[in-house]
């Protein structure tokens, strides 16, 4: 009795807040037929938005990948003073509004910003141009890979690496032959989540983009413009591509969690201030 009621409650809530909104995206996108749908996603401004989104993710994700591996190596393999502070600082972008993230880059590189004069003198555009979009995206996706790798590398310990070292392996050999194979699923997991956020980021990118159609519009920004123009079918058509990306991300995530069940537990729902898993009882 209680069981049925609880399952009913949970499923009703999930239907209302998750399933129906997702379904709406696809029904609205196809509301005026497949031809209109295809036209909306193959239109030049839509294509350039898709291209820009892919390009931004292709820069931001590798940047944060290299950082994530370096940070996880330093934090998981060594003990040093200030480690927990460093972990908190790495998590900082998660605790900050994306709009504030965008704001910081306007303050730095905008016309009246700290580097504004220098940039104008050298005819370099950062804000309201592609470099600003890349910076803002990199900022908001900054912790993703590091925070997946750190707990996994911590739980694996240093034994494998120390054995390799005693057998005469160099640092790079240890990393490529020993550590990387050990962390490959966690790495992929981090990349997957980082990429989803990088392609879908709206707030931070919206602040720094300047909304130049066909030039500085990513897919989420393009969705907004179409929506505000009352072009609902086109807005939902482009949105449906992003929704498909989200579904692929969820499928990939489930697959990786099936391959390596620990990933579930080291996932993003951690205490933001300590980066520990919730207390175990």
């Amino acid at each position, binding site marked *: 009795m209680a069981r049925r009621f609880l399952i009913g409650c949970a499923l009703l809530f999930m239907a209302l807040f998750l399933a129906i909104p997702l379904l709406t995206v696809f029904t609205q996108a196809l509301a005026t037929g497949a031809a209109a749908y295809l036209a909306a996603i193959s239109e030049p401004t839509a294509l350039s938005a898709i291209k820009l989104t892919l390009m931004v993710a292709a820069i931001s994700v590798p940047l944060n990948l290299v950082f994530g591996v370096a940070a996880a190596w330093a934090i998981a393999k060594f003990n040093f003073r200030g480690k927990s502070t460093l972990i908190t600082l790495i998590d900082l972008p998660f605790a900050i509004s994306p709009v504030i993230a965008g704001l910081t880059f306007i303050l730095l590189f905008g016309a009246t910003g700290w580097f504004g004069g220098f940039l104008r003198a050298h005819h370099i555009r950062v804000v309201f141009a592609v470099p600003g979009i890349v910076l803002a995206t990199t900022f908001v996706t900054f912790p993703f890979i590091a925070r997946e790798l750190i707990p996994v590398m911590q739980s694996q310990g240093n034994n494998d690496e120390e054995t390799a070292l005693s057998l005469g392996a160099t*640092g790079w050999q240890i990393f490529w032959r020993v550590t990387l194979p050990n962390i490959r699923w966690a790495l992929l997991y981090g990349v997957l989540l980082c990429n989803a956020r990088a392609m*879908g980021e709206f707030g931070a990118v919206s602040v720094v983009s300047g909304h130049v159609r066909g030039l500085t519009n990513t897919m989420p*920004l393009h969705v907004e413009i179409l929506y505000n123009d009352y072009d609902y079918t086109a807005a939902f058509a482009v949105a449906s591509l992003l929704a498909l990306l989200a579904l692929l991300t969820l499928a990939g995530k489930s697959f990786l969690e099936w391959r390596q069940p620990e990933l579930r537990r080291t996932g993003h729902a951690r205490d933001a201030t300590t980066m520990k898993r919730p207390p175990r009882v």
Partner: protein
Amino acid sequence: MNALAAGRPRRVLPGFGLTLGYTMLYLSLLVLIPLSTVFVRSLGGGWLHFYDAVTSPRVLAALGLSFGASLIAALVNSVFGLIIAWVLVRYAFPFKRVADAMVDLPFALPTAVAGIALTALYAPNGWLGRGLALLGVKVAFTPLGIVVALTFIGLPFVVRTLQPVIEDLDHDVEQAAWTLGASGAQTFARVMLPVLWPPMLTGFALAFARAVGEYGSVIFIAGNMPKSTEIAPLLIVAKLEQYDYAGASAIAVVMMVLSFTIMLGINALQNWAVTRHGER
């Protein structure tokens, strides 16, 4: 041994200097230095200007709305997140794995997409909005709509924080309570809740923090009317569009300081709960 005696850990593996150095450099360049500009800029016009900027009625209304709606959404998520986490761990039902994967949808779905989908649903002519309008409830373009969007955004934080804790809960303890004659409600209140509420608080805090800063999913469903349905992040954007950088920075500083104070408070409350309950 000498290294240990000196209180310094032995560093056997190579790469400490390189990786820590790179981490610090990247962190400083991308996060710390940019963030510090917000604090510096907010005081660009002096303390008085800062004070005026953050105490104007429009700013106070936006801050109140952002923090108030986030609080309500995080509370709703705490209740339903607990139920969902419980059901996903303890019960078997059809399509359970799909339901479990779907919990992460708000993490994976771009916020702008969520925003337009929720608006289409809850607008007066939408699937759900039409029915609710008959009942006299308006969701889209009201503060209630903001709560709906923020609830969507925060749900996975509570569920994913609670799930591992419920998985680790011993069935034996509940059964012991049950055999000693406790009712279902008593078992829940006296046996489960003391263990579940610290992680619930963590989930609440994460959902709340995310909701306060949320922008993309809210701006479509909120009416964005100053003093009634304008959230604080949107007001930052509005100030930026008027080139009022000091004003935008001032609101940002107040938001960050308030968020961190609340997070610290929740953390302290949680530590107190955990020590009082005799864990760890």
